[in-house]
């Protein structure tokens, strides 16, 4: 009964629309706990789906599922206090859609049927759109509009791609259920032309959702306009879900022996994304947008690693996990900054080290982690990816990769130094009245701590799952 995992939040979400505010908040946390428990159970005894062929438990799915429920649990704790601080209009809708969002994302991780996956991903768009529009401002409206339209169009492309996959089956007279697990073994039989076409469309489609340049355009707007917990979810989990779609399709490509084709495309898109991120992180003047672009960068890194193959894929998966942990913590901290300084512009923040020491620690640690410093896991991921790139002989690509990482770091560090240390903008409203409640900083700390621990020690079950996932798309550790 895999389906329970995403049905529970669905039901609670529907409940939350009708419940009063306070109860809704409780429900949020409660669902977080339940969901975490459920996914842990799912890890423990991998059950079969009720609708086999539609849903199944795959290693990559399990990974993202665990990340999702851990993140959601911590974010829900943060959100509870966050909501008490900032009185959002129509809070029920916010809570409800948070939960629906969770359920749809869970569905993504568990779905096995190509079309069901598409449905789930489209559903995530629809469930998260209201979250972005929470603030009811013109800007947020614009962000939502762009988000919905661009993602819908993109995902329509993915639908087309999925159709091409079926076409590839028809052409080759292959008759199996349209599920990834069923297609992968017979991948060699499929018609390569239409398979490629399908991959291209799916890549562009889900790539739009994942935030690969040049389809990333919706991402900074949405992330900067959504309330911070929502941004944390969007960036920490949603992008992974989209990546999951590409990952699963890439599985088929690899099985069909087309990994050169898909790999090259992934590398190119990865590099473009990183360069795009570099372009906008330099001279960025809003910290949430900056974080959003850094998400684009990391998605680029992940795509790059996946394209590299070999140990690069392992690095990519590690980067994916740690990016979720660290980036969500960063977005939560940015929420604190926003509550403290009441301003989105970097220029109007400053000297956080003094004003909000606790948040400063979380924020700066997150920054160090996201830019690949130990003891946080992205470091090891990037090491593997770079090394793997050389191993695979992509010297130029590796060169561009490294150079743009340096540029991004320079830009990012510059802004972060301003936010954290620069007292020149002391004219900004003293965030004295903002008290750093434990529940507003501890979620970040726990997230970072998890990343820190995972940098040095990965439990065997987790490790085994990662390896399975990596091996599934031709990755390896040597």
């Amino acid at each position: 009964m895999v389906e329970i995992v995403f049905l529970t939040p669905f039901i609670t979400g529907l409940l939350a629309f009708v419940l009063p505010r306070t109860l809704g908040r409780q429900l949020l946390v409660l669902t977080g706990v339940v969901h975490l428990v459920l996914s842990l159970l799912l890890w423990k005894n991998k059950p079969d789906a009720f609708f086999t062929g539609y849903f199944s438990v795959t290693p990559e799915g399990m990974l993202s599922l665990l990340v999702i429920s851990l993140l959601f649990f911590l974010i829900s704790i943060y959100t509870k206090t966050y909501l008490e601080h900032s009185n959002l209009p129509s809070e029920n809708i916010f809570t409800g859609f948070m939960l629906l969002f969770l359920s749809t994302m869970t569905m993504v991780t568990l779905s096995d049927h190509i079309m069901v996956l598409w449905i789930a991903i489209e559903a995530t768009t629809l469930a998260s759109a209201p979250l972005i529009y929470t603030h009811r401002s013109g800007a947020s409206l614009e962000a939502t509009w762009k988000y919905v339209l661009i993602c819908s169009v993109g995902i329509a492309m993915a639908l087309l791609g999925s159709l091409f996959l079926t076409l590839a089956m028809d052409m080759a007279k292959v008759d199996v259920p349209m599920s990834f697990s069923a297609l992968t073994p017979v991948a060699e039989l499929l018609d390569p032309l239409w398979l490629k076409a399908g991959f291209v469309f799916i890549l562009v489609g889900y790539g739009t959702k994942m935030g690969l340049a040049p389809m990333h355009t919706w991402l900074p707007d949405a992330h900067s306009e959504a309330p911070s917990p929502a941004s944390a979810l969007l960036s920490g989990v949603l992008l992974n879900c989209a990546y999951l779609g590409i990952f699963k399709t890439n599985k088929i490509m690899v099985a069909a022996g087309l990994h050169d084709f898909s790999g090259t495309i992934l590398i190119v898109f990865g590099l473009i994304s990183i360069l795009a991120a570099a372009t906008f992180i330099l001279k960025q003047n809003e910290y949430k947008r900056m974080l959003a672009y850094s998400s684009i960068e990391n998605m680029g890194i992940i795509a790059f690693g996946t394209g590299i193959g070999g140990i690069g894929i392992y690095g990519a998966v590690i980067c994916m996990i740690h990016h979720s942990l660290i980036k969500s913590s960063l977005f939560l901290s940015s929420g604190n900054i926003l509550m403290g300084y009441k301003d989105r512009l970097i220029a109007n923040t400053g000297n956080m080290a003094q004003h909000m020491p606790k948040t400063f620690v979380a924020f700066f640690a997150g920054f160090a982690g996201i830019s690949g410093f130990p003891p946080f896991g992205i470091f090891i991921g990037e090491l593997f990816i770079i090394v793997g790139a050389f191993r695979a002989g992509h010297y130029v690509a590796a060169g561009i990769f490294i150079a743009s990482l340096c540029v991004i770091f320079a830009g990012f560090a510059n802004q972060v130094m301003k936010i954290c240390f620069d007292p020149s903008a002391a004219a900004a409203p003293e965030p004295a009245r903002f008290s750093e409640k434990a529940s507003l900083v501890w979620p970040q700390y726990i997230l970072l701590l998890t990343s820190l621990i995972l940098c040095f020690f990965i439990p065997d079950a987790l490790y085994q799952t990662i390896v399975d996932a990596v091996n599934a798309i031709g990755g390896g550790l040597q």
Partner: protein
Amino acid sequence: MNQFFAALVLIVAGGFLSLVCARQQTFSKGIAVLLISAGCLWGLVYAMTQLLGAHNHFTTFQYLNIFALTCKIDGLSAFFLVVIFMVCLLAAIYSFHYMGHSLSPVKDAANYFFFGLLIASMALVVTAANMITFMLSWEIMSLSSFFLVIYNYHLPENRRAGYLYFVFSHVGAMFIFAGFGIIYKYTGNFGFGAMTALPETAKVWAFFLFFVGFGSKAGMFPFHVWLPHAHPAAPSHISAVMSGVMIKTGIYGILRIYMLLDLPAPVFGYFVVAAGVVSGILGVVYALGQTDIKRLLAYSSVENIGIILIGMGMGMVGVSSHNPLMAVLGFSGAVFHVLNHAMFKSLLFMGAGMVLHKTGTRSIDALGGLLKSMKITGMAFIIGSLAICGLPPFNGFAGEFFIYMGSFKGIGLDQAPFAMSIVAIVSLAVIGGLALACFTRVVGIVFQGEPRTKAAQNVKETGSTMLFSMGMLAAGCIIIGIFPRFFFTMCLTAVSALNLGYARIPVTPFELMTGHITFAAFVFLLVVLVVAGVRSFFYRNKPVFRSGTWGCGFTQPTVKMQYTGSSYAFDIIGFFRPAAPLTEYHPPVTGRFPQKTHYKSHVADIAERHMDSAVVRPVLYLFDKLRWIQHGDIHLYIGYILLAIILLLFFI
């Protein structure tokens, strides 16, 4: 090996505890200093035993299920461990009276925390025996030292310094990543072994990537730009550690990579020598041009890195031209200079710290006459200066002597090695002369003459721990200078770990040289004693008066009239004008009765200048041109999606 890790744990624990009980300022400071110095002492003793016993220890921890964190102590590592622990020990002791005057105790506690982290990570860097371990500790080292640099983050220049340092260390790390990548391509694992199997071209690429990466950490020209900003920014005991030890990890990296890659081709040697010459000469020229004492010392670190590189380069030339003696002399001279520079540079930084601590200014031209008010500091500083000028009978001379001997061995060779040796020797001579000018300037302006401003008047030297550390280091400089044998054998052990292919290095010829140095030192000291005796003999019951300096006929001399540091260096800087453009600002004197005027001069660092114009601006410009992509128009955005698909369809 367990002792080693126990020591590290002790050090880190010290930092951590001080962070835990940051509220009780003195206690947290005390516990930190106590534990850190205890750990350093333990580590020092352990490393010494390893070095003398020339053991090789090897420890492996499982990491991420299938990888491994490996630590290995061989001669080279042990030697660098000795240097690290020695300097850090004294720095920690020094810090007890130096720190703890800031208003926020947490800041000091954090400073100690990262200090402990820095020491531990440095120790791990020099013991790391596979790529993951190395990069892990390397990056932690960069990160922790970054936090130490921005200790006083409320000053804009310190923030800038921290930023520069952060970016440089990250970029450097990226270069090292790339180098490891190339190696990994061929070896297929993260171990340090089996690198010799690489094809030549790969070796060349890898070496130059590493050279840039490690060079930027070591402060090699032109990647030194961060250094003169970062080192002054940190608290003085940290500057001592950074300048004395941390930049040496870059040297260690180059040595280790050279050893692992096993590069016979001569070009590497020439390259290293050239880099050393440039760093050495320009470093000391810029040092001459500085008016901030700590910046000056930082630049002189660039110079000394240059000297070390020259030594290494001569060693590599010796290897490539099959001249064992030259090779050993070059390498061991370089390694010896690493030790010596660690000692006198940290001594000088501690002295500068004392000056800064008591007078509150770092500007040379604001000081003067401090020797009268701070005798111990002054004498220690003068000893340090003598040592850093490479004058006998101090340790600086001992180090340079071996590099000279090695280079002269190269004179016997032909063509390229001969030319490189000439370059090396002449530039060593020039560097020596310039260093002498530079440090007579510091000593003369800061410690002698009369106080130039209020800041330098009626200061007292207090803080026994600070004086203790300086005294120890000064004593060390003299002892090594007179009795270099023991320490030089340490260096030989370190060099033999490079396994240059000579079975085991015979000690006798080198003991002969060290013996000569000791002998000469004794002769000289004897002569000095005799002359001093003669002098006192002639001064017995003679009238000795004190009066003002003779103004050469000028009757109202004021302290303002003294020669300033800028004027002292003016001519020499002028000689190097193309490399060190000097800019002066002073309003013209007008009217019959001219009003008060002023003069300011500043020596620009060409590397810094060109980094800005040649790297930073173009990059910014390029990326600015791309910003229109995020144009805000949704039609365009949808267009991108279509475009992406159409482009991709061509490749199907």
